[in-house]
């Protein structure tokens, strides 16, 4: 018997059409009072969205890529059904669901469901403990900040706990701005109560009485779910301890990547421009409006209830010597199964990329880890375990969890240029080297990808990069050159090919590529001529590379693969 039908309705599910699926099911099943249709969050299998889970008395059945049609409805309602979705052992065997174990399994905005699944039990436990004991337990767990820096969480808490002040502030950093990262969005959309529980535990440990969640304005569903959850917390007095209420408020950012930096975030919360400032004083000494302030990331807070559920020692059993627990990664790029994965620290990059993500061995050049602040790691180093220290030794960082797979068809110079374009735009302009240095680096990369680069340009990048790192105040400038420096470290041959041979080995950089139509193969069907948006193909099937915009439409429509991208000038062979 069907008990409940759950539709994955985090932002990614909605973009894939989960809205229509839910509406369709609601309408078709409106007379079936025995079946409850529920909106849930994200279970991390983005490639399979829209995703429907049918709960029966004998367990759950999953349906992937569901469409709002009678055909799918019949499949869903069949009693002896089989899942159309198979959870691949390559993934399930390696993932370790702790932080995300409730994500996508419960109604995100139902306090009751969260409690039925053990929610707020950790908070109850903690309420009976002394602040010292709470901090000690977090130290024992070995939890380190999940936002990128990897600072030991317990130690950070102890700084704030030791302060004597009437007012202490706690901020949840939910300003997830890296292109390709969506771990924090997913947690806030799927299990908002878990994030709040982690924050309340931190408040008790540190004596904080005012809590903020600084969220991106671009995350409307996350903001909505957090606000509903906060209202429920107030209604049930969950945030009241010994008659004292701990205030929790969501504050929306206004579109500035640099506000992910803690001092910039504090300025923004105070109603100022989001410029970072010099530290010390550290926020734990002097933060929001001068009060001692602590900032942790969404995923860090979401880990906290788990620590008290199983105990710090047990928590620390998973992972490597200096990196404990699990890490969420947003897998994207050139791979088969994009999505959100939770893996134990110490798993190798290869296991995540090839086995869990389904990327083809031999077809992957590198991964970009940590987004625009991170670096690339070439495939030859994929046997390296994922932990804070190993990644740093390769010139990359753990970062917040964006993991973009770069296939062999992608140009590393162009990839570096893309990330630097992002950081250049987002530089707040306070430090000269970040403001102008990143701009000069970007211009240099643009020269190289357009075939106008020189060997001096490469030297210039190698010289300027470290200077930008040294002369910038905050994490944005200190990490902005990383994508350039790490691609120079591992893929210098690609830079040299662009500069010396005016050749893009991946045939991606448009200025270095011509389109060639092989008339030996061509069957003269005329599809290319018909579809070319700029009429660059003549009636006798010759491509005019002066007019052509390299949009690839002809290559995609050609039924016999007669058209290809070639090195510029190689069209006469």
């Amino acid at each position, binding site marked *: 018997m069907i008990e409940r039908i759950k539709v994955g309705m985090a932002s990614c599910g909605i973009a894939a059409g989960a809205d229509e699926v839910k509406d369709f099911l609601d309408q078709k099943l409106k007379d079936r009072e025995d079946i409850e249709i529920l909106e849930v969050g994200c279970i991390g299998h983005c490639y399979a969205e829209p995703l429907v889970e049918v709960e029966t008395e004998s367990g759950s059945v999953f349906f992937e890529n569901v469409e709002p049609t009678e055909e799918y409805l019949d499949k869903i309602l069949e009693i002896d059904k089989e899942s159309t979705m198979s959870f691949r052992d390559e993934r399930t065997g390696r993932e370790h669901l702790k932080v995300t174990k409730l994500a996508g399994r419960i109604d995100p905005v139902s306090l009751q469901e969260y409690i039925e699944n053990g929610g707020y039990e950790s908070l109850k436990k903690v309420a009976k403990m002394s602040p010292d004991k709470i901090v000690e337990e977090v130290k024992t767990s070995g939890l380190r900040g999940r936002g990128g820096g990897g600072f030991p969480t317990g130690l950070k808490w102890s700084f704030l706990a030791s302060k004597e002040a009437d007012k202490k502030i706690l901020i949840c950093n939910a300003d997830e701005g890296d292109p390709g990262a969506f771990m924090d969005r997913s947690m806030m959309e799927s299990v908002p109560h878990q994030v709040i529980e982690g924050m309340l535990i931190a408040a008790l440990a540190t004596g904080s009485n005012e809590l903020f969640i600084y969220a991106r304005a671009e995350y409307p569903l996350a903001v909505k779910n957090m606000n509903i959850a906060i209202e429920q917390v107030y209604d049930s007095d969950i945030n009241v301890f010994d008659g004292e209420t701990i205030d929790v408020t969501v504050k929306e950012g206004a579109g500035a990547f640099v506000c992910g930096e803690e001092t910039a975030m504090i300025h923004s919360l105070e109603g100022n421009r989001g410029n970072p400032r010099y530290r010390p004083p550290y926020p734990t000494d002097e933060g929001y409006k001068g009060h001692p302030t602590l900032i942790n990331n969404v995923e860090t807070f979401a880990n906290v209830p788990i620590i008290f559920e199983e105990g710090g020692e047990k928590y620390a059993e998973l992972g490597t010597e200096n990196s404990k627990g699990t890490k969420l990664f947003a897998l994207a790029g050139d791979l088969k199964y994009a999505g959100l994965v939770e893996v134990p620290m110490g798993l190798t990059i290869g296991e995540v990329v090839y086995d869990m993500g389904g990327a083809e061995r031999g077809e992957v050049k590198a991964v970009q880890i940590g987004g625009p602040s991170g670096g690339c790691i070439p495939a030859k180093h994929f046997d390296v375990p994922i932990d804070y220290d190993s990644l740093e030794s390769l010139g990359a960082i753990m970062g917040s969890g964006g993991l973009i797979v770069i296939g062999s068809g992608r140009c590393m110079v162009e990839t570096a240029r893309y990330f630097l374009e992002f950081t250049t735009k987002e530089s707040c302009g306070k430090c000269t080297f970040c403001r102008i240095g990143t701009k000069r680096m970007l211009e240099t990369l643009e020269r190289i990808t357009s075939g106008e680069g020189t060997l001096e340009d490469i030297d210039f990048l190698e010289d300027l990069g470290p200077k930008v790192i040294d002369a910038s105040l905050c994490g944005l400038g200190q990490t902005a050159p990383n994508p350039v420096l790490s691609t120079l470290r591992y893929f210098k041959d690609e830079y040299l090919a662009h500069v010396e041979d005016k050749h893009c080995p991946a045939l991606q950089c448009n200025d270095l590529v011509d389109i060639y139509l092989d008339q030996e193969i061509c069957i003269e069907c005329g599809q290319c001529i018909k579809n070319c948006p*700029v009429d660059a193909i003549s009636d006798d099937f010759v491509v005019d590379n002066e007019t052509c915009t390299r949009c690839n439409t002809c290559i995609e429509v050609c039924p016999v693969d007669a058209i290809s991208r070639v090195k510029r000038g190689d069209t006469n062979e």
Partner: protein
Amino acid sequence: MEVIKSLEKDRSNLIKAIQMVQEEYGYISDKSIENISEYFGIPTVEVEGVLSFYAQFKRTAPGEYKIAVCDGTACHIKGSSRVKNWLVEDLGIDDGETTEDGLFSMETVACLGCCSLAPVVSINGKVYGKLDREKLLKIIDDYRNRGEN
């Protein structure tokens, strides 16, 4: 100021206030800046300074028809810069500007998520895909005539 009167007059609510005003009027006018500045008792230059820092805030009134030119990866390689140029020529406005008659405004956006239809623009949220010059100018003309009637 009516829209923000529920806010406590504390500097930390400044960004929230600007967001509320933009939500109401679609942009932040000089007059709005004066009103916000008066409400919080902070100089107008500081209000302007804060709002100009954040990408979310707009200082020009959007047109009746808001054109968003998609410059996501797929549209970019399918010639979104040409699409934009056709609009610049036809409307006489650049990125972020509004025509004098207040009918059209244009901005480039990151990705509208309709990559299979590239290149695309959206007008007041409705997406038009697989554009060429002729098709685009006809769409614009249709809106223009609608505005006149």
